[in-house]
């Protein structure tokens, strides 16, 4: 705000504000990370250790939280007894498959939409974006009925198609914004040099490749993190990680350590992917309305 080349003298009031700001940032940082720390640490705790809690009001008792012997039992148990390897594969295939289909079909469609004008184009675009915004619960009622008729319930192809309902419109809409920013004259120049239409299209791909890659990853993230579709459409044969995690919750004898470990397994890959596409996050999460 204030130009940095103006020398500013710090008045006491200013210093007080700075300290307040620092405290506020620290508190917010703790509040953001605390849930992660709790999840990670609890996943290494034995059942009894997970239940230990200091007396109410005993602030020094916080140390009790770190008073445990770490165990990898829960992780072993998940992958050896609870079949989490398979659920992870299901997650990867369904989220990855849907992302791939969406981005391939989506980039073709987006490219064409960006290069042509025709009557009703606006309506078409609005229809596309509105399918993305439709509440999952609302769409699922008929989708479940239809998928049952085609025997797609509980199968990976069914789940891939279900994820495509929100990934494909996302890909089209956001990639159109990308192609809009690539000048047509590049293709024109290529075609003047004798390239055919398809080669001209391929020639601009390097320009949009980083974006396409980033949005592919975002599509994976949306699919991976989905719970509603996976729990209804994928129930049975195509159980994904979030569903398997929730199924660990049983009315009696809740295995918190195991659940937290499952949470870690579900979350960590997405944290890495998210950081990988950090630059494109705002664009992706606002449907291209805001660019960083």
């Amino acid at each position, binding site marked *: 705000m204030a130009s940095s080349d103006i020398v500013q003298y710090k008045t006491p009031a200013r210093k007080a504000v700075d300290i307040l700001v620092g405290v506020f940032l620290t508190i*917010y940082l703790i509040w953001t990370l605390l849930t992660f720390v709790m999840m990670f640490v609890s996943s290494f705790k034995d059942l009894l250790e997970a239940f230990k809690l200091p007396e109410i009001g005993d602030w020094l008792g916080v140390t009790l939280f770190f008073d445990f012997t770490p165990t990898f039992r829960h992780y072993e148990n998940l992958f050896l007894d609870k079949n989490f390897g398979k659920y992870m594969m299901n997650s990867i295939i369904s989220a990855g498959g849907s992302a791939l289909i969406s981005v391939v079909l989506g980039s073709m469609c987006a490219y064409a939409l960006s*290069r042509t004008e025709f009557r009703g184009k606006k309506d078409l675009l*609005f229809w596309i974006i509105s399918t993305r915004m439709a509440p999952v619960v609302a769409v699922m009622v008929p989708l479940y009925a239809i998928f049952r008729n085609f025997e797609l319930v509980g199968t990976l192809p069914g789940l891939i198609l279900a994820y495509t309902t929100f990934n*494909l419109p996302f890909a089209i809409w956001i990639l159109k914004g990308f192609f809009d920013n690539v000048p047509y004259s590049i293709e024109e120049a290529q075609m003047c040099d004798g390239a055919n239409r398809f080669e001209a299209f391929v020639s601009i791909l390097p320009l949009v490749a980083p974006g396409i890659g980033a949005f592919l990853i975002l599509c994976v993230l949306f699919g991976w*993190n989905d719970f*509603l579709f996976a729990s209804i459409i994928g129930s049975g044969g195509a159980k994904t990680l979030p569903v398997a995690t929730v199924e660990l919750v049983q009315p009696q004898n809740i295995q918190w350590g195991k659940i937290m470990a499952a949470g870690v397994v579900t979350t960590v890959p997405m944290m890495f*992917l998210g950081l990988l596409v*950090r630059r494109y996050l705002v664009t992706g*999460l606002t449907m291209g309305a805001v660019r960083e």
Partner: protein
Amino acid sequence: MQTTLTNGIADGQLTNAAKLANVSEDQFRMSNGVRVIDYQPTSRHAAPSNRYYLWLILPAVIVLACITLYPFFWLIWMSFHKVDVLKGDVWNNFANWRRLLGDRSFGNGWLLLLKYSAMCMLMEVGLGVLLAVILNRSKYEKVLVTLFLMPMMMAPVVAGLVWYYLYNSTFGWYHWLMQSAGILGEKSILGDTGTAMWGIVLVDVWQWTPLIILITLAGMKRVPRDQLEASMVDGAGEWRNFFQITLPNLYPFLLIAILLRFMDNFRFIDAILVLTGGGPANSTKILPTYLFDVSFQFFKLGRGAAIALTLLFVTIILGLILVKVFESPAGKVNQEGS
């Protein structure tokens, strides 16, 4: 700060683009402008035929129609029938729709959805803008933003589960924390009709405030510097600058943020399902949760379809507003400068 990403094309890519077009980068910038919106082919003989484009558009549109338009019409059909898997659907004379009129859970669901959204939005926008203002002037902006946005990567249902564990009244650390701070008394936050709503709002605030931070930060980079400097020369203080220049420039961004979050509250009930499932005593049964119960707990698919259509209707209206904001001059002007 100059952003490296100019309207979606990084600078390096622009150089590539210039190379491909066989002109110098400056020429390229000049002749094309940096942002080309709705670019129309300029030379007719080079423009591929429409049929070529049609073939590119069709596959996606057909797939999308099959998985969204077809279900949509099916939804309308279902809402007028008593859906029975074994005996087939029977026309039931608007019974599904008439039942909605007297359905208190339905009206209540809408009210709770509005209340829930309002609470989330107030806290998220308040916190988000405050943090964005602070971060915008902070040396550690990059690191802090990266740390802050972590919750967004977590599957909402996992976030719900972890918070459920931490809220637990016998061994949950957040419960202990709140009791030690004297906030809650003896109650458990999710078990009491008065506080359960706060319980689910907090999770949403935890997970989605970062989005508001990101959007606001992106908006703040677009605030014209010359305006700020001019008003400083005229003697305006930082507060005045913020309220009279920065904030008005942020409005389109905040509007987009609020609309998106509002629609997400319609879309995602994952966390609520595991946190409270709509309880206790329906105090958190916001409409999508109610819809989930009607359709997939009681299997009243016809009635569920009618509820789903009301939800879709409102979403489409919100979507129309959102697209208008996307296209509004204010929204565009703010995207242009960088």
